[in-house]
Every structure is written in structure tokens, then in C-alpha cells.
């Protein structure tokens, strides 16, 4: 097996609130692992060969790695801000590359067609120019000033509004989305996508949210997000090839896809290629 830089990254492997001493059997990058939370409340992750793997608990999830993470898990300062409702959405299994799942999350042009009448609707299909950069200090991909018309942007939104977004990719299979918050102008709702790579073409997707919304019942918040992700799954499981092509030429991006272009380049530059297809076929 070739060494992939992604081996040393942190990955979500379970929801802390749903784990107990009975080990949850799952997988990470093709290897079986077991995740448990011991009686004293410590999370423990063990590989199939009995090795104890690195562990941290953050943003509702237990995180682990098959390699040696060089740094702490990325920070989401908003997660600790008082007044936010933290939502453990749960898991959705998708038969696609973990990288394809992240790229889809970075994409707004599909809203009117895939999330019709929720996150988008014809004829409001135009994607206005936005800004994309790789922030050198933190080495993260950022897209800002992303604006899109939405019929029902969030569970707390009533009626159509133009929503502003910021996207941030702090790790190869994680994405943090900041989104205009209808009840609190000036603040951003945080919606994340944490992807657990089970194999190069299979992943468990763990969405998580930190919202300013104390009006909507938790089950409705979860249900709303699950509906959205099930719609995304019907796309993700039908893209050809299953792996994310990193060589330009295989797919045709436009200006609306600049975030995806930056993400693919960033993956390639860091040799983050688990779930990627390098040679055009």
C-alpha cells in the first residue's frame, strides 16, 4: 500500500452520546476498528490487530486516526459560543468516495435541482461570483461571499431569502459551512460535514450543527438535515467514476465550481489521495 498523507489525519468514528462499553464495530480506510466509551467516560478506539489508536472527543464525535496526527483536531470556535443548539444529526452511509461527499457539500449550484423548493428553486439558478482562497496560515480552503436565493434556507426560515455562505475545508474529509442565521442577523449558523472514510469508495457521513435556533424541536432539526443528505446521496451514488478525479480534463468545471477546483488542487498538492482517481480513464 502506498503511503497516503491522509493516514495521519483525524476522522470521526462515532457519536460520543451514542457509544457505551459495547464496542461499535466499524472501519477506517479499509481497516476494521472498534470504538467504545468506557464506564469512566473515556473513549477508546482499537484497530483490528489490537493496537490502541489515537483518540479525541470533539463536536459531539469521537475522532481517531490510523497514523500519527501531527496536530490537534481543527478548531471551530463557534462550537463553544453560548446560546447555540448543538445537533448530532447521526450517520448516513454513502457508497461513494469520501472526497466526492465533501465536494458535493461545497457545491451550491445543485440546490435548485437536488434540494428543490428547500435550498433552491428554478428559475433562481444563477451562481454569482464568490471568492476562493487557500489560507496559508491555517492551510485551509475557504470560499466566501457565496450568495444564493433559497425558498427555505433553514428550519427557522419562513419564505424565500438570499442566503450568504462561507465554506471552510480544514481537513481532507471535513467541511465547515457558515450560513446566514435568520433569527440572529450578524451571526452565522454552523453546519459541518464530517466524513469517515470506510473505504476509498464507501463512507459514513456525520453532519453536525451548532445553530442559533431554540424554537425548532431537535427532532425537526435532525429530520431537516437528514432529508437534505438523503437527496445528496441519490446523486453521490450515481456519479461516474466513484472516485474523485484529480486530473483536470476528466470533468468540466465552470466559474461556479471554483471551490471544487481549489479543493481538488489542495488535495493533490498535499497528496491527500485516498478516494481520489489520479489518472484519467
Amino acid at each position, binding site marked *: 500500500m502506498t503511503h497516503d498523507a491522509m493516514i495521519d489525519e483525524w476522522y470521526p468514528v462515532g457519536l460520543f452520546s451514542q457509544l457505551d462499553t459495547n464496542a461499535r464495530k466499524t472501519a477506517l480506510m479499509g481497516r476494521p476498528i472498534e470504538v467504545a466509551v468506557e464506564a469512566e467516560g473515556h473513549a477508546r478506539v482499537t484497530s483490528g490487530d489490537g493496537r490502541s489508536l489515537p483518540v479525541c472527543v470533539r463536536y459531539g464525535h469521537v475522532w481517531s486516526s490510523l497514523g500519527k496526527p501531527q496536530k490537534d483536531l481543527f478548531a471551530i470556535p463557534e462550537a463553544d459560543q453560548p446560546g447555540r443548539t448543538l445537533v448530532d444529526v447521526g450517520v448516513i452511509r454513502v457508497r461513494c468516495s469520501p472526497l466526492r461527499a465533501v465536494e458535493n457539500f461545497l457545491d451550491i449550484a445543485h440546490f435548485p435541482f437536488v434540494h428543490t423548493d428547500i435550498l433552491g428553486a428554478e428559475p433562481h439558478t444563477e451562481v454569482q461570483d464568490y471568492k476562493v482562497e487557500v489560507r496559508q496560515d491555517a492551510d485551509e480552503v475557504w470560499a466566501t461571499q457565496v450568495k444564493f436565493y433559497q425558498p427555505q434556507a433553514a428550519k427557522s426560515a419562513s419564505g424565500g431569502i438570499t442566503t450568504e455562505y462561507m465554506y471552510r475545508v480544514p481537513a481532507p474529509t471535513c467541511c465547515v459551512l457558515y450560513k446566514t442565521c435568520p433569527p440572529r442577523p450578524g451571526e452565522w449558523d454552523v453546519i459541518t460535514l464530517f466524513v469517515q472514510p470506510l473505504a476509498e469508495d464507501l463512507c459514513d457521513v456525520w453532519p453536525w450543527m451548532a445553530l442559533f435556533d431554540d424554537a425548532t424541536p431537535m427532532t425537526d432539526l435532525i429530520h431537516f438535515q437528514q432529508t437534505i443528505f438523503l437527496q445528496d446521496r441519490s446523486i453521490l451514488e*450515481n456519479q461516474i467514476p466513484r472516485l474523485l478525479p484529480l486530473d483536470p480534463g476528466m470533468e468540466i468545471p465552470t466559474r461556479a465550481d471554483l471551490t471544487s477546483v481549489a479543493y481538488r488542487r489542495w488535495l493533490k498538492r498535499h497528496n491527500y489521495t485516498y478516494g481520489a482517481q489520479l489518472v484519467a480513464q
Partner: protein
Amino acid sequence: MPARTPVGPIALWRSQSGRAAASADRCPHRGMRLSHGFVRGEALSCIYHGWSYARAGNCLRIPAHPGLAPPETIRVPTHEVEECDGVIWVAVGEATAQPPRLQGVVPLRSLTAHAAVAAIEAAAGAKAGVDGFAWQPQSKLQIRLLLVPQGAEETLIHVLLDDDSSLSQRIAASRAVETLRRTAEDLETKATAP
């Protein structure tokens, strides 16, 4: 709808004016299967970002950039399609001849067998030509079968019947072909058993 051909999966669709068309089942934008798309007017639109394609394969519209005329270079490979006698024919590569005429018969049904073309031919005791083969499982029952390989192990069987067949003949034909499929699948299993 999706269909399988010897040159890979295709998206088969019918425009509003009724013309059949076939393209590769992969959107050049981000690889989504076009067979999941939707038809509007004379164009097929991809379900992911709504890019739409003409029957000739050229991209007509990119909804994210409504003011932009898509460049000629954005196109999806297409296949020639002919519709005659109730059957849609797709050419793989350059079509050198018109599809065979199948006069006096009407399509009854299509079914997939987990068996190669050879096993079905063996089960029916016939050899298929371009226009399939005629098969007479019992007297007064004249069936025409068209066989389309779906990869190495499966075959799509199109069943056609005399256009003046009675209801009971149609039911009998349907049953006969199901029996044929079972026989062919048994032959196939025996042939591949170690």
C-alpha cells in the same frame, strides 16, 4: 432511462416531440448519470446541476450561468437511434445499415436473463441473426426474439409476437419465454459450474 450496450451504459430518452435519442450515461460536468435526468422540450437535463443537452449532444444551457452560451466543446457523446416497428435501435459506432424491418409483429415484453446469448440460443435451438430469431415453442405460437448482451453474463430478451395474436396467445408466449429463460439460466449454471 438507462440501457446497457456493448459500448457501455447509455441514457435513452424521448424528446417532447417524440423523438428517441441516446447519449453516454455520464454528464461531462461532474460525472452524474444522465439517465437520472429529466426531459424538457427537445433537451435532456442532468439532475445534478441542470446542464441540458440537445439530441446531438451539445450543451445548450448551464443554469448556474444563465447569461453564458455554453462553448461548443462541452458535449456528451451520442449514439444514432432509429425507431421502427415498435423497436428502438441504438447504433454502436457508425451505423452502416438501417435496422432490420420486423413487419407484422408487435413488441410484447422485455426481460433479463442471467445467461449469455449462447445459452439462450442453445435453449431455444436457434441461432440469432441481426433480426434475432423466430422461435416456435408450440404449434400456433410464432415468437420473434431479439437478444442484447448485457455484459458477459446477462442478456436482455425482447419478445415480439404476430400483431394479430389473441390475448391467450400473448399469455402463452410470455410463459414460454419465461420457461426459456429458466432453461437457459440452468444451462449457464451447468456450464460455469466447476
